[in-house]
């Protein structure tokens, strides 16, 4: 498990390195060192026994993420430019169904991209969310977003459901 995870991650980091630097042959030694260091750091920060993210599912998630990022930017730009400044900011505490910290951070990132909402950290199966228009909050929508994020992980994430204790 640990070996497979180390191998997966080093291939991923190697691909990142080749994409970012062009991967010329005389820089290979530095690339190798960087990939090894990144893999070690990654295994230390997020050990192999944690629920993993399934890469092809992330690829399926990307189009929607890009569309959300576009709508999020458009929405906030419209509000900032409107002379009447149509915002009614406020906080809500959203209940989550899963306690996993990595899923919470990822959900926070995605929520912050969505139009009108900004995550302020999660913990204890709940997340503080700041809204530009607090009257427009939908708990159902938040739950749907959480389900979508949990769907990016492998099955080990289910063991951290609130319902499972």
């Amino acid at each position, binding site marked *: 498990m640990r070996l497979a995870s180390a191998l997966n991650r080093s291939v991923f980091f190697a691909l*990142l390195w080749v*994409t*970012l630097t*062009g991967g010329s042959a005389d820089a290979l030694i530095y690339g190798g060192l960087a990939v090894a260091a990144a893999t070690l750091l990654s295994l230390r920060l997020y050990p192999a026994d944690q629920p993993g993210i399934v890469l092809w599912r992330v690829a399926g998630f990307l189009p929607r993420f890009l569309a959300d*990022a*576009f709508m*999020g*930017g*458009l*929405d*906030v*730009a419209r*509000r*900032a*430019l409107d002379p009447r*400044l149509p*915002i009614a*900011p*406020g*906080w809500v505490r959203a209940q989550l169904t899963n306690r996993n910290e990595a899923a919470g*951070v990822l959900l*926070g*990132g995605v929520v*912050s*991209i969505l*139009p*009108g909402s*900004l*995550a*302020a*950290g999660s913990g204890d199966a709940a997340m*503080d969310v*700041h809204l*530009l228009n*607090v009257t427009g909050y939908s708990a159902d929508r938040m739950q749907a977003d959480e389900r979508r994020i949990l769907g990016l992980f492998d099955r080990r994430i289910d063991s951290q459901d609130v319902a499972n204790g």
Partner: protein
Amino acid sequence: MSWIDLAVLALLGTGLAFYGAGSLGLLRFPDTASRLHALTKADNLGLGLVALAAALHWGSLAVAAKIALVWLFAVIAAGITSQLLARQARLDGTRSHPDGDRP
């Protein structure tokens, strides 16, 4: 001027407009968390459009992939810092106002 040049110009102009809107939001919005909305979301989109313009201008897949990665890293960094700043704004707000929703 080719169609590509026109598209590059249009993308650059729109991207800069979003940066402008983000900065305007930073000045006009009333509290820390609302300002973070403007900075992260409008600037992410602005950077995305400028990056798209750059990718189109150089017209190579390798450059486009590199620029897409740079955009993704910037979005991840902005998302994480904005969550940390929003967290602090939330804690400060709770301390100074019991209902915690004012600046």
